[in-house]
């Protein structure tokens, strides 16, 4: 193989598009991780349609809707934080990042109340109340805890990631000219939002 060699001196390798490409690929793995759970949900919903309907009646639509609105708004704030930094408004960007984290926290607090209420009513895996229900009902709640639980875990991860981004922003590791870390964190947060966008109707709105 013949090659002509030319002088290319790259001392610092930086590739923002590549970094975003890698992040998107990672997001696919998260999407498909939840996708597997959606496969399980769709099979069991198909097999136990009535039971799922009935079980969903006891879901708290108000908390679910509120949480949906919270996550959607948090997606807005992280997106705006990127615009703010690009406009060189560092404090505004930091504030918006912080608000995003707080919204995540509120989401989790709502979830906590929701779960404790359900557990109080005896709707938890292995409880006598749940086991006395028809199989579709048991599966519905099993899937509810696993899917919203795994989602909640990802909300926590997203919050931790964004808090790291806040630290990087403060320390000028993230700057208006070097923002790909923040963009990547934003992408992750949006995916967490998208997963909830699908979880919400499938658990709360199928009555």
């Amino acid at each position, binding site marked *: *193989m*013949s*090659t*002509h*060699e*030319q*002088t*290319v*001196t*790259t*001392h*610092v*390798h*930086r*590739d*923002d*598009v*590549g*970094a975003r*490409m*890698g*992040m998107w*690929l*990672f997001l*696919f*793995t*998260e999407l*498909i*991780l*939840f*996708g*597997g*759970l959606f*496969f*399980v949900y769709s*099979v*069991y919903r198909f*097999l*136990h349609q009535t*039971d799922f309907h009935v079980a969903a009646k006891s879901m708290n639509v108000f908390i679910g809707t509120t949480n949906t609105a919270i996550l959607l708004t948090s997606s807005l704030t992280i997106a705006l934080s990127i615009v703010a930094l690009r406009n060189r408004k560092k404090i505004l960007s930091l504030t918006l990042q912080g608000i995003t984290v707080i919204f995540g926290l509120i989401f989790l607090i709502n979830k906590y109340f929701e779960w404790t209420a359900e557990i109080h009513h005896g709707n938890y*895996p*292995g409880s006598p109340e749940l*086991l006395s229900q*028809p*199989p*579709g009902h*048991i*599966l519905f709640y*099993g*899937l509810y*805890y*696993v899917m919203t639980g*795994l989602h909640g875990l990802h909300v926590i991860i997203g919050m931790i990631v964004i808090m790291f981004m806040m630290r990087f922003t403060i320390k000028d590791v993230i700057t208006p000219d070097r923002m*790909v*870390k923040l963009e*990547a964190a934003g992408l992750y947060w949006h995916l967490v939002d998208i997963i909830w966008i699908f979880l919400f109707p499938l658990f709360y709105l199928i009555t």
Partner: protein
Amino acid sequence: MAGVAETVESNGQGSFLDYKGKHKGIFAWILSTDHKRIGILYMVALLSWFLVGMTLGGLIRIELLTPEGTIVGPQTYNAFFTLHGVIMLFIFVIPGIPAVFGNFFLPIMIGAEDVAFPRLNLLSWYLYIIGGILIILAIFLPGGAPDTGWTFYIPYSVRTSTNMIITLSAVFILGFSSILTGLNFITTIHRLRAPGMDWFKMPLFSWGLYATGWIQVIVTPIIGITLLLVIVERVFGVGIFDPALGGDPILFQHLFWIYSHPAVYIMAVPSMGVISEIIPTFSHRTIFGYKFIAYSSLAIAVFGSLVWAHHMFAVGMSDSAEFIFSLLTFMVAIPSAIKVFNWTATLYKGSIQLDAPMLYALAFIFLFTIGGLTGIIQGALSVDIHLTDTYFIVGHIHYVVFGTAGFGIFAALHYWLPKMIGKMYNMKFAKVAFWIIFTGFNILYFPFFIMGWLGMPRRSYHYLPQFQVYHVISTVGSWIMIAGILMMFYNLLKSAINGPRITERNLWGGETLEWTVPTPPPLTNFDKIPDVINGPYEYKQNDIELEEVK
């Protein structure tokens, strides 16, 4: 995470092995983000684990010398074949070629200085090691080694008292390691090809790694969530797969195989990529049908994701599912066959050089043909009803996984190890070892087809006396093969320790970029990133003009 890394001024640098960075001693290796060092770190771990898996295989064969117990009890036997599968598949062959040779050579072959995410690369290796440590813990902690088979089928994987949670966590972590490698390679190939290195000037090994990277990224999360669900089941009894609570154990099988079938293509496709490098080099001919082979790698990735339920033909699926998956299974054979035809056509009128890498490559074609054809046999519903869960399947598995991926690794070792470490092994000895391995392999595994056809079930501690003669033949074959493998490792290890140094850049007359850099390569691979003009495999064309697809 972001693609920022310092590179050094590279004129007149020594080999990457001699490079002195800011870390000393062992830390210079286990903290290094140099793709070449990471490749070697993987190689050492991988080959050590292979020997463990091979020993387990050998012990299984000894146990099966007699129809009743021979050396161990049934519980231990179940643990043997479980660990043999888990180690050979998740720790040896799935990381396999991408982790060792992909890491070492992909950047060089596309004219890059490293992969897209060097630190993520090191993380992949750490996750791999942690996964391996967890398996060791699973073996030795109270509770005992897992005994469910590597397929972890419900309900036994929930009911067994052995160390399932540790085992499943290990596989989950190993899966994550695999995902990161795939993600890294996809991005590397998209973003870091040297100027002039178009997609269709890339070596076919890169195409193989690209297709494999996609399989790794897309399907591995499915096994992740599936095994996570089993862990949740064991801990919380949620009922997702429990019929008493409305769950469906068959759904577990579906989810398991949605990953584990494409996983076999993670094993096979990189190996095919290695063969696509070796055949043209040792035939001194350009590869026949370059684009067909490139596209077939992608086709295998796509079709391979659509055939999973052919592992479930006898569990009671619907008629339409059985029909559809059988049809798709026949179709997935086509791109693989295309490769075999192209390799064979490359040999035609070539100037064949039968060095050790070529011997392994040719053996690959032979063994893969047998493995692939038996796969088609199994894809036929009416036949598979009788063959499923028999030794026929075990024979098929070993011809395709060992004969393909395994021999691909052996071929790659003989092709590339001297380049990696700058030491040459004894070629005569290597060839002798090859023939012993090849002979032993066939004596060991071919009887499996016969036994399976006659009804010998797999994973069975006891068996009927009429099968004993086949088992004895197999076991003797295993001794021959193991002897050959030990000879092969001895030869390679000896070369690494005190073999003759080589500095020649192009050891075999290859035409891809790794043969243009020093032996061993320097830290940044190239003094200057090459400006690529020609495609790979530009050998002198022979007299007969064969139809070439450009």
